[in-house]
């Protein structure tokens, strides 16, 4: 029985990687057949630029999901940081570097608030971050007065759309670099191990001397900071802060994490796997665009395919534990 169980676990892990990879190949083949420009270098760099923001958000939220919690405020943090950055760049005369720091600090503060609510006020993460999602969203609309905030800043534009190496867009470069560090931390560090331990067995982790509150706080702060960086990239690319500009990222990021094979119940999966889910969603959106599908129909198709992909990849053996 032990041997059968082990091979089952191995198969499960294989499936977890194989299904999204196959899905990705299928999408690429289908879109290439529909439009041969899909596999052009121009479009691939475009894809990289588009996926960089989702990659940052999804990477951050994987930390939270790994420990069995959830952060529903990620989209709102992106919006809040993006709009605040746009306002500062338009009105305050601060440079890009200062705005980057302030933006990251706002993200960290949002993460601290989420973490404090979950860890110290003991509000379930779902409820806590659902509430902060509304609050952060409200604050961003309020500070912008409900209007779009457009600015001009050459440094910011370079940050997102400049090309440091060859034709690779900078936003893609930063996102990949941060992802690489995060994946390493998730898989190899004591902090990463603590996340798995808390997600898979919080009581055991606590009784074994893992500092559960601190780990939880750090995870929420990491999620907040990566969302802030995503918000800065987003606003740097468009030079305009708009209300609700980050909202779609919430579902897309959670879908990407699940498709990558991280269990919503926590304790299984990994940061390194999230990139697979991000690629599936980004290729899908980009491909539908290139294929000339009507934008409204695109939204429907994206939603449907996310459902199908999640249905195929979700590990049901652990669903009973979903918090």
């Amino acid at each position: 029985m032990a041997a059968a169980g082990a091979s089952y676990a191995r198969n499960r892990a294989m499936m977890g990687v194989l299904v999204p990879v196959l899905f990705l190949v299928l999408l690429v083949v289908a879109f290439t057949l529909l439009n041969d420009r899909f596999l052009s270098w121009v479009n691939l760099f475009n894809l990289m630029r588009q996926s960089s923001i989702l990659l940052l958000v999804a990477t951050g939220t994987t930390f939270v999901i790994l420990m069995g919690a959830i952060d529903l405020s990620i989209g709102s943090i992106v919006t809040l940081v993006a709009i605040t950055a746009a306002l500062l760049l338009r009105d305050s005369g601060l440079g890009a570097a200062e705005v980057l720091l302030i933006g990251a600090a706002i993200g960290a503060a949002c993460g601290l608030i989420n973490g404090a609510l979950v860890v110290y006020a003991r509000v379930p993460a779902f409820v806590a971050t659902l509430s902060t999602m509304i609050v952060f969203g409200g604050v961003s609309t309020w500070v912008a007065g409900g209007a779009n905030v457009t600015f001009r800043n050459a440094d910011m534009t370079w940050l997102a759309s400049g090309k440091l190496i060859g034709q690779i867009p900078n936003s893609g470069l930063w996102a990949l670099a941060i992802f690489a560090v995060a994946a390493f931390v998730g898989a190899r560090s004591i902090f990463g191990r603590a996340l798995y331990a808390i997600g898979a067995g919080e009581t055991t982790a606590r009784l074994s001397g893992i500092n559960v509150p601190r780990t939880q706080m750090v995870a929420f702060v990491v999620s907040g900071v990566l969302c802030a960086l995503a918000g800065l990239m987003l606003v740097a690319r468009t030079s305009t802060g708009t209300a609700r500009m980050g909202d779609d990222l919430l579902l897309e990021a959670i879908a990407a994490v699940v498709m990558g094979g991280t269990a919503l119940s926590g304790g299984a999966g990994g940061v390194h796997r999230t990139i697979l889910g991000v690629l599936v969603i980004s290729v899908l959106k980009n491909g539908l665009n290139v294929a000339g599908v009507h934008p409204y129909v695109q939204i429907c198709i994206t939603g449907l395919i996310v459902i199908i992909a999640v249905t195929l990849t979700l590990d049901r053996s652990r669903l009973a534990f979903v918090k």
Partner: protein
Amino acid sequence: MNAPRKPILEIRGAAKSFAGVTVFEGVDLDIYANEIIGIAGENGAGKSTTLKMIAGIHKPSKGTMTLFGKPYNPDRYTDAVRAGVSMVFQEQALVPNLRVYENFFLSHESKFTRAGGLVDSGRMIELAERHLRELGLGHVDPRRVTGSYEFHDRQMIEIAKAFVLADFFKVEHPIVLLDEPTAAIGDKEVALLFESIRRFRDRASFVLITHRLAEYVTLCDRLYVMKDGRMVAEMGKGDFATSRIHEAMVGRARDEEYYKEGTQKAVTAADPVLLSVKGIAGGHVQDVSFDLRQGEILGIGGLVGCGKEEVARAIVGFEPFPTSGTVTVKGQQLPLRKRGPAAIAASVGFVPKERKTEGIIPYLSVAANTSLAALGKVTRLPGIISAAKENALAREFIKLLHVRTTGPRQLCQFLSGGNQQKVVMAKWLARGVDVLVLDNPTRGVDVGAKEEIYGLLRDLTARGVAILLITDDLLELIGLSNRILIMRDGKVVTERPAPPEAKPTEQELVGFMV
């Protein structure tokens, strides 16, 4: 007495096993009308499972049951209720935020529908009121929210529910099963409960399970005694006294070899005290104090609920725990706040009772579980785990403790209970401990692995580790311990030395437990 009566419930040759493990077998049991019977036995003797079989919660693997002369094969608890068998659960099964009458008829509402599919609550209330009055519980208002009544009244409501439903399903003489009804109530409530049960006896039969043997003597007309899944005695009212009951409950031969009694380390007053506990109190635990010396195994025994587990929790800081009193490890007093991390820092290891949720993390590998309390020892760069070092650590302990696994990367969930328990031990040994607190370390562990664990504990004491052993298994308590404390109702009632040549008997200790 009466002419030869026929039992209303007859059980013949019943057996029950879960996943191949036999809980009880060859159980014969009769219940007559207007009778209060008891089923006594140690933890794990099979009495609770027997009760649940009668209540339709567990299906017997073998054997027959006959109720009121007809075959009785309930598939679920509702079937039992319809046939006239009700159970008063240890943790009360009433929904506190529903009204009393709603609780009475919970899941039977379909019998009270009127035009349009609405529930006819008027009829429910009327019926509830009549029954409560007949049972002498006129002070209970069926319209009130159940949770607003005291524990004792809620217990009465649960018993009343049995009568209401029996009447409703046209059963003249219900059977009420009481699973430790006195576990959570005080003496006054116990007296009230027993008085009511005696009063209801002319209308029903009762089956009682309790941890307090004296209650069988006060209440029961007849008593069955179970031991290791078998009925070992049946006693009539005249012949039971508590001493005779526990003689029947225990009395097994202890294999000295099995508990490695020959290697028990002699501990004297010259050996340093590693753990000192003074005046632990809180909850229902009162003033527990003891010293534990290097190389010693100190055992704490007592019935479930006597407070021994709370003592362990207080030492290792597993919240919630009794907060009064002090815990001192190697001369350092542990703080009240963050006691858990402080205990670990003071080299105290804890093997908890619930292995799968407190001891190991089933979804993590053997290696990850082994290194969980010693992550600092398997790093290469600060904060970064080295897979090679971690695997090497796991391999070392797999070999040392004979953990049967495919390798360090196998998930712990695929290990047997005994091997999982070895991983819990490995976790603490990998960190290095001076004091090890064990709560039922061999619960659900097979015989072979048990013996290996006992051998390991002896090796640890030989290396100077002090062990506090809390266990429900009497033979284990006697066989392993250098010294034994028995707790009852939150207090230490006796302390017995247990050197290899003069181990106390089970009977001696049980006398203090009940």
